């Protein structure tokens, strides 16, 4: 019974913690701009993050090796260091975007000044990390983020053409679009792949597995969390896209602000719906801020072999503590410069996709290494999906920057 509760909680946490500001913004924009035509990219990328998430959790449970330890061993010092520096920059930018998003949602709820709310929310998040152990942090944000289910309820209420929605799951490129829009379509496709397969998610997930001392008996929970949990979480993002296609596309509204996405629930359910959507967004986005802040510290501490983890008290892993505190301070400073949080989201999305091949290669190599993994080495399915997605990520990484500049970040 305890095991079943544990698995259910794990899945629910994954569902509630799946959507962050980048998925929220890009799903709503993609739905408004291309209707249901990009649903398949969300579904497709979810298979990728499910595969790599499962692999990183299995490696954490069996080899007890966190991602950045592996990265240094397998990529070597030079390439590992390049990845560390790049991922720390991207994670910090993403953390700033999430703090900015949290402040925007709080601003909508309270009407208080944005900068003050950014400072207050950063201080509260840091206090939560300082005072609570890993499991509580992960569970509380994940479970409160479940309020995002209101977006799925809104989809049912809005009664889309389900046949057209189902067709959206079929890989497609809308050939009727003019060439200029096709390039924007490609940019959104790459951005969604990046948003769903953000590197920090694997750093955080595998480090969490080690924090919670996963063992082979936890592999079932790992498999269910990364398949069912991530799958249902992705479905929430798809619902945001469907709602945007129904509500915003006919009116040519470009939902660039997170608050616009909340209207997807406000329109069918009124004020109560709006508050519930904002509440869900608040915990989903602030939870992602915690994950990105901690991921930076995990990466640096693991790369240099320091003590790390939130299962230790702050003074027991001092350099790790210093690293996450510094990340939050820099991220807050970025927000306070006045840079638009959505600009930060775009930068983090584009630079993340360039990092993805470097992040996932060591996982594939260790997952196939019988010396580390013994009988739990990658199976044929895991390898097949893993290498296929690796090829996709290489193409996405090469295309990301040119597409970003050609489309001016999807604006043309």
């Amino acid at each position, binding site marked *: 019974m305890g095991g079943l509760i544990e698995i259910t909680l794990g899945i629910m946490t994954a569902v509630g913690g799946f959507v962050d500001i980048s998925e929220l913004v890009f799903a709503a924009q993609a739905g408004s701009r291309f209707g249901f035509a990009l649903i398949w990219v969300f579904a497709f990328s979810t298979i990728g993050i499910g595969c790599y998430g499962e692999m990183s959790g299995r490696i954490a449970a069996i080899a007890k090796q966190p991602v950045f330890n592996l990265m240094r061993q397998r990529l070597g010092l030079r390439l590992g260091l390049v990845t560390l520096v790049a991922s720390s920059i991207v994670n910090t930018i993403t953390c700033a975007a999430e703090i900015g998003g949290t402040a925007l949602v709080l601003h909508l709820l309270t009407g208080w000044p944005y900068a003050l709310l950014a400072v207050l929310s950063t201080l509260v998040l840091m206090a939560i990390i*300082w005072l609570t152990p890993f499991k509580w942090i992960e569970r509380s944000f994940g479970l409160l983020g479940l309020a995002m289910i209101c977006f799925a309820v809104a989809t049912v209420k809005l009664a889309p053409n389900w046949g057209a929605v189902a067709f959206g799951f079929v890989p497609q490129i809308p050939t009727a679009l003019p060439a200029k829009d096709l390039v924007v379509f490609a940019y959104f496709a790459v951005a969604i792949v990046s948003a769903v397969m953000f590197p920090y998610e694997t750093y955080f997930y595998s480090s969490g597995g080690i924090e919670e001392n996963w063992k082979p008996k936890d592999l079932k929970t790992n498999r269910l969390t990364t398949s069912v949990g991530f799958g249902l979480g992705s479905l929430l993002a798809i619902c945001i896209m469907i709602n945007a296609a129904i509500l915003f596309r006919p009116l040519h509204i470009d939902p660039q602000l997170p608050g616009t996405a909340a209207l997807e629930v406000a329109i069918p359910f009124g004020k109560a719906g709006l508050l519930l959507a904002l509440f869900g967004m608040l915990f989903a986005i602030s939870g992602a801020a915690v994950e990105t802040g901690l991921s930076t510290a995990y990466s640096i501490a693991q790369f240099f*072999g*320091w003590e790390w983890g939130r299962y230790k008290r702050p003074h027991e892993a001092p350099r790790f503590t210093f690293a996450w505190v510094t990340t939050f301070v820099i991220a807050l400073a970025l927000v306070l410069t006045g840079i638009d949080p959505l600009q930060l989201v775009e930068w983090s999305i584009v630079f993340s996709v360039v990092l993805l091949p470097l992040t996932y290669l060591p996982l594939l190599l260790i997952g196939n290494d019988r010396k580390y993994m013994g009988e739990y080495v990658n199976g044929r399915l895991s390898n097949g999906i893993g290498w296929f997605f690796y090829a996709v990520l290489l193409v996405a990484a090469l295309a990301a920057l040119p597409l970003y500049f050609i489309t001016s970040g999807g604006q043309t």
Partner: protein
Amino acid sequence: MRRGDPLKLLSEVRDLQIVDKDGRNCGICDEIELDGAPGEALTVSAVLVGPGAYARRLPRWAHRLIAHIAGRGIVRVPWDIVEKISGRIHLSVAAETVGLRRTEDRLIERLKQVPFS
């Protein structure tokens, strides 16, 4: 010892996590020190840890940058206190015995003064 063995050792030991006898993480094997003379077999004499050790493996500009940020410190861990290697390098002594975790120990004292730490 076969001719290829020392090189294999180098590639398999370098960049591994080091843990002390209490299971605490205390750095990464940044470089290996070898002993030997022309015509003799090379033997591993120590594991080197610290920015001064890994910076040597980087291009010169990065070497200077790291020296500026993290210093040139190297801690020498004698090979005879390496107990076993199994995905990590396990030491038979506490980290402090060989001078590892100095920065940690300094920071611990400061952090202990912060409430709820």
